[in-house]
């Protein structure tokens, strides 16, 4: 799966429009993931996962920041997320299947907050981008 020039342009533009709301989107994506796919909560036994949790908000901010970073370095996502990739491989070891689940929830958040932004073309590009990020984060698992 390769990000075409059009995909890269779509993703950069999408994150440009999302702007400062990215943090909020990250938090909501996590919230939706925990509700929709309860098995994902197993990675956060140390978190308060209740509604409005400050820990979830904080973590959502981190997730969003990583996505923004990847979008800003879209020609070298592996380079941009290298440290995060190490972290996931060595310490966090989140099963690869879960990145798809979070990706789906992120798309749902974008759709719910900004439906005009998510044209079919942008939907495709963002989905590919989120897949690419997941692939990078699990690349060093074995």
């Amino acid at each position, binding site marked *: 799966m390769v990000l075409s020039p059009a995909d890269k342009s779509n993703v950069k533009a999408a994150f440009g429009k999302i702007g400062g709301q990215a943090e909020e989107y990250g938090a*909501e994506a996590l*919230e*939706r993931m925990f*509700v*929709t*796919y309860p098995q994902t909560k197993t990675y956060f036994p140390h978190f308060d996962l209740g509604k409005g949790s400050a820990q979830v908000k904080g973590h959502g901010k981190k997730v969003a920041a990583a996505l923004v970073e990847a979008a800003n370095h879209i020609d070298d996502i592996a380079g941009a997320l290298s440290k995060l990739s190490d972290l996931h491989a060595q310490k966090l070891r989140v099963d690869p299947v879960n990145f798809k689940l979070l990706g*789906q*929830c992120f*798309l*749902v*958040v974008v*759709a*719910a*907050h900004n*439906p005009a932004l*998510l*044209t*079919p*073309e942008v*939907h*495709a590009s963002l*989905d590919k981008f989120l897949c690419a990020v997941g692939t990078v984060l699990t690349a060093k698992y074995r």
Partner: protein
Amino acid sequence: MVHWTAEEKQLITGLWGKVNVEECGAEALARLLIVYPWTQRFFDTFGNLSSPTAIVGNPKVRAHGKKVLTSFGEAIKNLDNLKGTYSKLSELHCDKLHVDPENFRLLGDILIVVLASHFTKDFTPACQAVWQKLVGLVAHALARKYH
């Protein structure tokens, strides 16, 4: 045995009542073919699928999307018997159409995104959770008769 709480059923039927099946079905199928282009393999006879614009405007895509989502409506009327509702369709998709059940999961995810874009903040996390459960069960029912 699938278990639905009264609240879950309400979240499903309440939303479904406001869905334009023709529009939503057309959009969901079009997006499936655009976002996961390998799914176009099942639609050689549909004519022009050469670009997102072509796909969105394709009358066969629209018609088929409506058909698929209408069938979904049947599931919603029979939430307690999805297996029975989809038994024949499952055999059809296996024996005649030869569709990998993974495609049902992909379409389910796309439908969720389409519903989110239509209902925006009304598509709450609780709503999403119930609908993901539903599309997962529909996909499972459609795969059940595969052999």
